[in-house]
């Protein structure tokens, strides 16, 4: 019973029986429940070279711009003019130092740390508690709650952003990272609740019963029994919410405008608009912003992919 992963297996529907196409079935599929289907790549060897050629072309299309970004972040403006796409002549960190110290990038990073931290904690707590209540407790109107969450997920942002801004300005939450955290938590919660609920439903009830017989109260059961088992689900939710908060643009542009409080995304945007032709400098700032997200992604690919694929609407 030590690994939580054993519990996330919801009964795997055979592909013969047509699944009802709900976002849930999609994310169950993408979520990688159950063993991965055995490789069905037994296609003739003679076909694979074509596949590799196409895949390599696509990989170059996706990857080369990123490499060039990194190359150019080491170049001075002069070198950039002479050698726009190639390897830099030397590893000069001058651009990085300048972007970090003189620009608003260092401060933006700190603001983003606060923003991401708050969003991740808030989302995990709110969504975790709500999912627990829906999966395990005697919550009235469960079905209604679920439908409500689905409606909220598909509600377009424009539907509420305008009144929300004026509500926030009445509550003095404009230009405050806390105000933005509250919004991000609210935006991330519906999807996270649904994801965590499918997770919690898979945990056998006998565990709660056993704990209850041993005299644990509701709170202790949630905290000591369920939470450790739900950790993989919370990790997924945290990654999605955190990455979202880190790169979100629409709300941060509208709700935070004071230069000192700009998170990384808007700080970078402003920086690039203030240094239009200094691509080396702005590229260094962009690399600084990208590095944490990409490193985290490389370390936790499966979690990331599963979480984002079940994520939802993002143009």
């Amino acid at each position: 019973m030590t690994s939580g992963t054993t519990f996330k297996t919801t009964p795997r529907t055979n592909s013969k029986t047509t699944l009802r196409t709900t976002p849930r079935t999609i994310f169950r599929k993408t979520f990688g429940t159950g063993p991965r289907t055995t490789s069905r790549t037994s296609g003739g060897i003679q076909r694979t070279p074509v596949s590799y050629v196409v895949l390599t072309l696509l990989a170059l299309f996706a990857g080369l711009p990123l490499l060039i970004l990194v190359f150019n972040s080491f170049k001075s403006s002069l070198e950039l003019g002479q050698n726009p796409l190639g390897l830099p002549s030397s590893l000069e960190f001058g651009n990085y130092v300048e972007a970090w110290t003189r620009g608003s990038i260092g401060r933006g990073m700190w603001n983003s740390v606060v923003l991401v931290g708050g969003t991740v904690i808030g989302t995990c707590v709110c969504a975790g508690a709500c999912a627990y209540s829906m999966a395990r407790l005697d919550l009235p109107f469960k079905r209604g709650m679920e439908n409500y969450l689905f409606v909220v997920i598909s509600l377009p942002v424009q539907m509420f952003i305008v009144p929300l801004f004026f509500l926030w300005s009445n509550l003095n939450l404009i230009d405050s990272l806390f105000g933005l955290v509250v919004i991000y938590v609210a935006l991330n919660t519906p999807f996270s609740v649904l994801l965590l609920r499918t997770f919690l439903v898979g945990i056998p009830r006998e565990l709660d019963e056993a704990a209850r017989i041993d005299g644990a109260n509701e709170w202790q059961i949630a905290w000591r029994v369920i939470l450790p088992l739900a950790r993989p689900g919370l990790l997924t939710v945290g990654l999605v919410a955190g990455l979202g908060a880190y790169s979100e643009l629409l709300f941060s542009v509208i709700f935070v405008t004071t230069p000192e409080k700009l998170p990384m995304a808007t700080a970078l945007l402003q920086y690039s608009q203030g240094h239009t032709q200094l691509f080396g400098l702005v590229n260094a700032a962009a690399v600084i912003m990208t590095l944490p997200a990409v490193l985290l992604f490389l370390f936790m690919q499966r979690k990331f992919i599963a979480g984002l694929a079940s994520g939802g609407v993002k143009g």
Partner: protein
Amino acid sequence: MTLPDEGRLRRRRRRLVAIAFAFPALALNLLVIAGPAVSSLYYAWTDWNGFSAPSFTGLDNARRLIEDATFWNALGHNLIWLVLFLTVPMAMGLVGAFMLSRVRRGASLFRVIFFIPYVIASVVNAQIWKSLLDPATGIAAQLDRIGITWLNDVYFFGDSNLSLYSVAFVDNWHFWGFLVVLFLAAMQSVDPSLFEAARIDGAGPFREFWHITLPGIRATLMFALMIISLGALLAFDYSFALTAGGPAGSSDLVSLLVNRTAFTALEPGYASFMALVISLLGGVLLVIFHFIRRNEDTR
């Protein structure tokens, strides 16, 4: 049969605990999403300026919208966006996923490379392509050095004939890898014996793709079409970061226009009406998808 008193009390207590657990999420949701969404249903029919009390103006906003060329311009761009995103990334995603499903070595590396742009923030991706497509420092400058000059005067984001497509191109560069991963997961759960049967019958890769893969992942295809359609009505980031809708409104989108109308022109009442129209369009799309899905299920 009535419950004994103590049992009823315990039951009520259990319910209260359950509600307490669900309360924070629900309260936040009502405050940030549901409350403002419902109130915008009212503001849409007023001349609200955000600060003084709104007064009901009936159909005024609707009449104004019908004659508002900037709105139709932006909505037209959203529709072009919709068509572009329903085709280009779908095709790239399908090709990428199908090829990936046929190779054994390196598949996970390719998958990661395809997916990385999706994890990177839109402002960074915008910056990457802003510098790559800049005539002085990007691809054009490199080509110029080897004597190819026809890109020298092409301003991808500054030319009003190109700006919308350039912005869509960058957004697609970031998005298609996501579809690869989504489709690949679906393809891997198609019954492998179907492929074997097809091979025994002598089907080539194209017929395999057409007759087995595509029908096998129909559910996921529908899901992708749905999120793309809704996303196309909401697209904001790339147009905002790359061109801010310009030049001369040539890459304007409704979400940017709503934003400007509400917060720059300070006409949140009218902006709410625009938002209501675009949300209704989204709702219509959802209903259409719902019916298509139901038809599929009953087949």
